[in-house]
């Protein structure tokens, strides 16, 4: 698929997210829409993982550290064939395994997450295991920018740098908003480059809702040797629905019936226009 087709797919998958949240009566709209292009880039262009090789020890590993964006991951995994789309109809329903955070009872999900600050240190362990075994797989994790206030993120960053894990890539979904408002007001995250570089990471940038830009950054991360890479992906929270873009209030908002129709229409328009 070319970039235009992937961009179009990304809007189509946001539509799946919309259905999940609207019908499930809950979810994290803003972060799902900001992270979608990152997930599409990883799953469609870079990661060597598929339903066929999901039990192969040599597969690439992914951890959604910002686990609350699970609806976006569900949409991507269903699209890649890890489970039938229809199973998502049970999302958030009584007894369902499709809950509001990643759950490794589901095909394609490696680790449970939801409590922030866990994904990076776990990814460090996975990358260390790969090195010990001389395996070629790579480990990816996506963090939220609000999540970077968790101290355990920096324990993981310290170890990733210390062990020079060049098979590890972290991507920060830098949408600059968290549940209470601007990340800079809640707990300032700027000078992110300096912070990561100080921990021994190779810092890359991407326009986080631009598949071509993300593809370039991930390609550069894979080529980098001697240490782990982090991609600061500048994204738009709520990307795909103009009225929700850059609005903290849409962090976990469930659309009304009118909003649902408006979002659906805008996503369809953007899906078509992307081609």
């Amino acid at each position: 698929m070319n970039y235009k087709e992937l961009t179009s797919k990304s809007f189509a998958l946001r539509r799946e997210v919309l259905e999940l949240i609207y019908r499930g009566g809950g979810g994290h709209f803003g972060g799902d829409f900001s992270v979608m292009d990152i997930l599409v880039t990883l799953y469609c262009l870079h990661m060597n993982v598929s339903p066929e090789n999901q039990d192969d020890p040599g597969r690439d590993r992914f951890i959604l550290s910002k686990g609350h964006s699970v609806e976006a991951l569900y949409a991507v995994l269903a699209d890649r064939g890890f489970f039938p789309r229809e199973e998502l109809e049970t999302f958030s329903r009584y007894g369902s395994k499709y809950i509001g955070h990643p759950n490794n009872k589901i095909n394609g999900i490696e680790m449970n997450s939801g409590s922030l600050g866990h994904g990076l240190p776990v990814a460090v362990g996975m990358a260390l295991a790969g090195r010990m075994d001389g395996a070629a797989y790579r480990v990816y994790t996506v963090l939220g920018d609000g999540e970077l206030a968790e101290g355990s993120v920096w324990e993981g960053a310290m170890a990733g740098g210390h062990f020079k894990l060049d098979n590890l890539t972290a991507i920060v979904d830098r949408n600059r908003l968290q549940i209470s408002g601007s990340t800079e007001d809640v707990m300032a995250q700027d000078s992110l480059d300096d912070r990561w570089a100080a921990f021994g990471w190779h810092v890359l940038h991407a326009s986080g809702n631009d598949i071509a830009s993300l593809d370039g950054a991930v390609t550069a991360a894979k080529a980098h040797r001697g240490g782990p890479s982090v991609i600061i992906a500048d994204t738009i929270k709520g990307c795909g629905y103009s009225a929700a873009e850059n609005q903290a209030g849409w962090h976990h908002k469930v659309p009304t019936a009118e909003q649902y129709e408006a979002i659906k229409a805008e996503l369809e328009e953007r899906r078509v226009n992307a081609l």
Partner: protein
Amino acid sequence: MNTIPNRQVICEVLTAAAAKDRDIVVLCSDSRGSASLGPYVAAHPGQFVEVGIAEQNLVSISAGLAACGKKPFAVSPACFLSTRSMEQVKVDVAYSGTNVKLIGISGGVSYGALGMTHHSAQDIATMGSIPGMRVYLPSDRFQTRALMEALLADPKAAYVRVGRNPVPDVYREESVPFTFNKATLLQEGTDLTIIACGEMVHAAKEAGALLADRGISARVLDMYCVKPIDRDSVIRAARETKAIITVEEHSVIGGMGAMVSQIVCGEHPVLVRNMALSDAPVVTGVSKEVFDHYGLTAGGIVKIAEELMRLA
């Protein structure tokens, strides 16, 4: 008196096992000295990971290794491992179902005068309340070896607590009765039952002998498997003897005694007395002084046993 601490036995078992199994990885948090891990590190530097003073990282990295097929043993002081890393144990180990063995060393009040920061009087409560976590407190060096051999052959997560200093032998090298996840019967008895775990088992065994001299027939159980607790042995004790004493180096809240009481209340109520540390910072002292202070001794157990025999 035995001079080999249980933590040293753990190192010996892991050093031998790692030679045969390349997937065994030991991790520590600047605790290789405290854990007596020197010989392991020397023998298997490629199967050792030092994470520095970062216990949350210790557990999450272990979980990541386990998710990729390694068999990690995270070794760190019990006080930090069981509380600071509790969420990592809950999410990355128990909930994600990774085969991480958590080895809490210098547990209980082993660190004596270092104070409440270094005591782990809550580890049964914290680790035990997590679905999918198992909790083991072996009593002596021989049982520690048997337990570690059992855990090496087992693919699920567990927390093990051992103390810092050598403890008296409960068993003999040639005779270590051990059934995984079953309490070990140390002495048969019909009047009352003493259920102990960890370093308290030796005192319980002594108390059993002292009580026999006084005409009280005490059953003594080594409940090294605090979770999954051996329910059958507890229920049998309630049915076949008139009272139960639990003895543990742990807070009286949420420990092994609380678990026993819950089972006894629901199945066959008899008098149960929980001997444990009180819900307060522990008095300053070395282990023996602390145990004496709280009556966690053979003499203290005898006193409670006699009282219960008057009431039962």
